[in-house]
């Protein structure tokens, strides 16, 4: 496997949805420590809806597919997850463009675009987007995207690059345990968030790991 086709991308997103739905309760529990306990539910709601509306999604090309996903996610994921995941998918779609196949370099660009999409949404509401160290899913997404970019620069193989990226996400999530949240709902509880990982970051680690396992 060295390329991701439109078909591959639909399989990946479908796997992602399955992982999210499977983890609804554990993801809620992650959000209970310093948040409000609804992360799993909010995320799963959007991805359940995605599976429900699956046949009406746009399968023309990778960009079109991701964009049609973004609309469902933005509308049906509850809470902060709607705008965050919705804008991530929307930015990813734009970065992908109307192509039917991408390689590692494009995948890395798509992930970097997702980071920027999330940050722009944050910026519009809070004057600044989340960066690594704020204890949000950015703490997992940025290392994963950076790992993909580095692998692409090094000319690595796609699947092993994705495995490395997933590992980077897990490590990034792990590191959120040690810090106090500055953004997100947990950003209002101060030091009380120390000791628990960020739900969104941890969730991304689980999701990316699940996806690469399904591809291996």
């Amino acid at each position, binding site marked *: 496997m060295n390329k991701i086709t439109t078909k591959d991308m639909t399989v990946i997103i479908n796997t992602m949805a399955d992982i999210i739905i499977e983890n609804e309760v554990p993801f809620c529990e992650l959000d209970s*420590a310093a948040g409000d*306990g609804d992360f799993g539910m909010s995320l799963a*709601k959007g991805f359940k809806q995605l599976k429900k509306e699956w046949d009406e999604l746009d399968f023309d090309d990778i960009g079109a597919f991701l964009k049609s996903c973004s609309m469902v996610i933005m509308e049906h994921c*509850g809470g902060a997850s709607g705008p965050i995941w919705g804008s991530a998918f929307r930015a990813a779609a734009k970065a992908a463009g109307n192509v039917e196949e991408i390689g590692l370099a494009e995948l890395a660009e798509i992930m970097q675009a997702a980071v920027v999409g999330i940050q722009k*949404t944050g910026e519009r509401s809070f004057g600044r987007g989340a960066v690594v160290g704020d204890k949000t899913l950015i703490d997992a997404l940025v290392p994963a995207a950076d790992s993909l970019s580095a692998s692409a620069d090094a000319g690595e193989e796609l699947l092993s690059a994705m495995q490395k990226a997933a590992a980077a996400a897990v490590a990034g999530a792990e590191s959120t345990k040690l810090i106090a949240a500055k*953004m997100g*709902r947990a950003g209002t509880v101060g030091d009380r968030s120390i000791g628990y990982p960020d739900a969104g970051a941890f969730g991304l680690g689980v999701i990316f790991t699940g996806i690469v396992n399904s591809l291996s």
Partner: protein
Amino acid sequence: MKKIINTPETFVIEMCKGLIKAHPELDFIEKFKVVKKKEINTNKVSLISGGGSGHEPAHAGFVGKGMLDAAVCGDIFASPSIKQVYTAITKTESKKGTLLIIKNYSGDCMNFNEAAALAREDDIDVDAVYVNDDIAVKDSLYTVGRRGVAGTVFVHKIAGAAAEEGRSLAEVKAVANKTIQNVRSIGFALTSCTVPAKGTPTFELGADEMEYGVGIHGEPGRQRMPVAKADDLAAAMVSQIDEDMSIAGAEVAVMINGFGGSPLQELYLFNNSVSAEIENKGAKIYKTLVGNFMTSIDMAGASVTVLKLDSELKALLDAEVNTPALKN
């Protein structure tokens, strides 16, 4: 989990329908979970609030004369989506513009702000205020700021009265922000809430423990501590509010807000303790509200809110109001 419920999935819709059946003067747009007045007065600023459900009667119970024009209902503890908020804005459009009253949580801010941006593209005049009255957790330059809790109800009331007077959007926004600047809250929990979809308590408390400074979503607060007497709680809470915003010599409105699982008898008892402490600090109590206004599902516990008043705020606080959950 023991609740009066059919399924967690249908909870919010059934609750809103039950509200509408008891209050036929309100409309429910089921697809977007928007509760609104049947008749929109297009000659006053429209006021919209909302957020995750689970805080009933907030916010749908405050739709009516002298308070909100619409409330947007998310799932339990989850902000409504951009599209839901956008629908509420368009369905209550007024010639005088729209003010969004947002509790300061990331999800609410993002969804309401993005919806406002969409509405502005339709040439609707939309502005917003952010309520952040919870003093439990110290604010800092590096964080997203304080949480919005029960003080939001005073903002609804005062902005609602100002809008009803025919003031402009800028004027209504200004008095809403004045209220926000003068309102402080702190709460405690004796038990956790239980989100229906999760089915188990959000946090665990020992038989003799309480969570002091808890948020209205079961978020942690200042400290986990042994259950304290009502008088001691009142003394600590009022002192901390007074440290944050000195109340000596001020006239204040007080709200003793139950979180859903504490009976009214305990709230009245608590008001006895709290009002004595407030008077001890040299403040004069102008008005007191005791009841469940901004709940946290079924959590046992309560919060104290103090609003410093001037003559403008007093007049607006006293103005006519007729909503399911607040009347005068």
